[in-house]
């Protein structure tokens, strides 16, 4: 019926003809208004969701019970749980890492790698990485079974990778593989080999351990729709057949997903079953945590004061987010599109002294207090969790005298300037950055004016996507890269994506040196070597800054004290239940 009305709706342009169908729509909406369809409408999307609802309904909740680890999150995998289909940063990622596994794993502490489905982490020392750093060989662990009971072989691995590459879904992250993988090969039942297009030190961390590289059961997929280019797989969207310590048993849309311990897990099996509670409401989250219904909740900074002092709740602020919280300088401001009122020349930020002066003027302490509620630390040019992070690397802190000196040197002190910075409105973290910069500079010298241009996220993203970018500065946080190379290349390489858009070449005192270092660090497979190179870069980027890296934002984890041996590595996409137990 809908379809027919719809045809009529589109077919004829005439108003009169459209009205009846419009009425139909109204009736539909009116019915919604009666709200008697609440439940179904939300669940009708998936076949067994309904049974799940029935099942999950009665034994659902069970908050108090010791056998289950209850994790409250603000949403659910809207794009499904298929490693080939989930989009970056979506909740799908978070399910994948619990139920699927990868060839290599990231250790709970620090960035070093552990073998997972592979028995060894390939390095040049153990000869699993070819001299030219292009070929990686993975010896597959024996006797691993999928949730559907079939055994894991190299074929499954190849199948999984190829599957993602063939399907190449726009919403998915196939790019992660395609951009670097030349070819995949099954050497024998228990040996899998990958050839790269170019040497990449970050391959293991950022590709092999990335969501699209998760290993799925070939048989399961073949039995349920197989692989078709550009076609999402219905079955895989709603079900997960991996080798992980937990398996997805029921999914009640908008309410909860329940996971059971996988008995035949090859390694040490998980201590607890797990339940994913969808709680959109911050207050409800806090209440649930207090009431002991949740063991772990997503960090909601503005509620930290609410749970502070509650003896049953542990607030872990040790970790830091991977997203770099930055105020970026634009070195390629299109002259014609200079924001009204701005008096700066387009090449304003070409002068490193100006950028440094800005960095010295900014009040970092104020930001950490006002913007992050104290949950943060002064930043270097790498997030603490990443390889190459050096706590002793130079950090900026407010130094007005130095700022003044630099501004005088650069010749702006007497003349003064007006410059605007684009920021997302109403964002409790971003807008303070702008305001603090404004206040710091304007307090420093009355001739300095900073316009904080606040726009809604949509408008921000729109402006942000323009090339060239039409504002001298903006405030945002970057993507959570798990290997320093991607971060360095994307954000600071003079010819990287940002380098090009923002014209870093005109800004760096020695762009080639920086380019050289970043590429070398990206190529090298020797960890020490890379750390050294990145240390070098940290110094260079500090002295020749392209950002004000406002602060490293603490990654706060809030959990009940029943939770034992809680560990969390920000390089994982989210806490992994396999590690936790409850008393």
């Amino acid at each position: 019926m809908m379809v027919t009305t719809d045809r009529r709706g589109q077919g004829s342009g005439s108003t009169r003809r459209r009205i009846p169908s419009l009425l139909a729509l109204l009736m539909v909406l009116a019915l919604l208004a009666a709200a008697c369809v609440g439940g179904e409408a939300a669940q009708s999307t998936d076949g067994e969701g309904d049974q799940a609802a029935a099942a999950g309904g009665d034994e659902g909740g069970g908050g108090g019970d010791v056998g289950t680890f209850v994790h409250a999150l603000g949403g659910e995998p809207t794009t499904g749980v298929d490693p080939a289909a989930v989009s970056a940063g979506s909740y799908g990622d978070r399910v994948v890492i619990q139920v699927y596994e990868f060839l290599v794993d990231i250790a709970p502490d620090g960035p070093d790698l552990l073998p997972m489905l592979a028995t060894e982490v390939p390095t040049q020392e153990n000869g699993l990485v070819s001299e030219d750093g292009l070929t990686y060989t993975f010896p597959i662990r024996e006797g691993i079974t999928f949730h559907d009971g079939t055994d894991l072989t190299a074929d499954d691995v190849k199948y999984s990778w190829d599957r993602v590459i063939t399907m190449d879904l726009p919403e998915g992250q196939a790019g992660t593989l395609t951009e670097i993988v030349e070819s995949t090969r099954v050497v024998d039942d228990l040996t899998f080999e990958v050839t790269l297009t170019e040497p990449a030190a970050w391959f293991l961390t950022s590709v092999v351990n990335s969501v699209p590289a998760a290993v799925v059961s070939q048989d399961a997929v073949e039995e349920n729709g197989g692989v078709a280019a550009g076609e999402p797989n219905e079955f895989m969207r709603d079900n997960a057949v991996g080798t992980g310590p937990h398996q997805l048993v029921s999914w009640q849309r908008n309410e909860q997903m329940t996971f059971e311990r996988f008995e035949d897990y090859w390694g040490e099996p998980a201590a607890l079953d797990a339940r994913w509670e969808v709680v959109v409401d911050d207050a409800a989250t806090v209440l649930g945590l207090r009431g002991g219904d949740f063991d772990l909740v997503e960090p909601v900074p503005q509620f930290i004061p609410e749970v502070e002092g509650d003896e049953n709740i542990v607030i872990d602020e040790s970790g830091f987010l991977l997203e770099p919280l930055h105020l970026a300088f634009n070195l390629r401001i299109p002259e014609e599109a200079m924001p009204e009122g701005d008096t700066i020349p387009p090449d304003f930020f070409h002068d490193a002294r100006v950028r440094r002066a800005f960095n010295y003027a900014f009040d970092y302490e104020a930001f950490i207090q006002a913007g992050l509620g104290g949950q943060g630390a002064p930043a270097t040019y790498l997030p603490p969790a990443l390889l190459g992070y050096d706590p002793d690397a130079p950090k900026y802190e407010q130094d007005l005298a130095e700022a003044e000196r630099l501004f005088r040197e650069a010749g702006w002190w007497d003349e003064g300037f007006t410059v605007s910075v684009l920021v997302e409105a109403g964002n409790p973290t971003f807008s303070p950055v702008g305001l603090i910069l404004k206040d710091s500079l304007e307090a420093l010298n009355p001739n300095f004016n900073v316009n904080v241009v606040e726009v809604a996220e949509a408008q921000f993203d729109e402006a942000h996507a323009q090339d060239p970018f039409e504002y001298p500065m903006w405030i945002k946080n970057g993507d959570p890269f798990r290997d320093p190379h991607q971060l360095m290349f994307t954000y600071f390489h003079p010819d990287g994506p940002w380098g090009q858009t923002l014209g870093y070449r005109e800004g760096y005192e020695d762009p080639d040196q920086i380019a050289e270092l970043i590429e070398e660090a990206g190529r090298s497979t020797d960890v020490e070597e890379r750390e050294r190179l990145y240390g070098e870069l940290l110094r260079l980027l500090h002295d020749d800054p392209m950002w004000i890296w406002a602060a490293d934002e603490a990654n706060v984890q809030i959990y009940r004290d029943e939770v034992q041996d809680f560990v969390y590595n920000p390089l994982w996409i989210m806490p992994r239940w396999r590690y936790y137990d409850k008393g």
Partner: protein
Amino acid sequence: MHALRVRLRRLARLSRAVLRNPSASAGLVVIVLMLLMAVFAPLLVEANTPDPYQMPRDWAAINAPPGTPGHPLGTTPEGGDVLYGIVWGSRLSVRLALTVASITLAVGITLGSLAGSIGGRWDEYIMRVVDVFMSIPELILALAIAGILGPSFRNIILALAVVGWTQYARVIRGEILKVKQKEYVDSARIIGETPLRVYLRNVLPNSLTPIIVIATLDMGKIVLVGATLSFIGLAETGLAEWGNVVSAGQQGVVAGRWWVATFGGAMVFLWALAFNMLGDGLRDVLDPRVEGR
């Protein structure tokens, strides 16, 4: 000339009546105080530079409670001085109310008059538009407009202006249709005055009574709705505007920091209350028939 004198005398009589009405005069007093505060804001609290409509931020004293030296009414999470926001907020409220009211009045009266006096097809069209606007609750429409235009005080003013004119159009039209019936207009016609003169001399003046009342009540409502919008977060951060002050204090309330929200909102309440009382008083004086509503 004589007509004018009559008008003036009538005006004088009315104003006396208004002053005699307790609620009206009470409202008037508050309004006058508010206006004084707006006018003399710089004397009360020193203007912030460069932008006087931004609360001066004291990053060293964020979320300071009332009574903190230098911040008698405390500060916002950005360290913005609440007292400043309240005093200078009165200016923005006056600006908001006046701008929106004048725009809506102009548009409303024009369209309403057109619809009423020309009638026929145009009447039909205009009233349809009015219906459409009236079929969406005011705040929601304003919210949507402001939201789509993006967060800024200017857009709030714009949104309210777009939303608010319909009631005037309606009233004017109704009044005109009513007045049209009255025979003295006909007689005027018979004397051979042009419709325009008739309109200007007879129709418009007679339609003004309800308009005045509504406009007064509106002055209060505009600020109320405007404040609500900026409370929801559609004004620039740190803007010295009452609703925005409350908005800044909202998160704090849950964490026990009651003051920011409380002081900001009290001003909005006072403002709206004052105009409502004045409006009701006016209504009772101008046409006692319509009580309530």
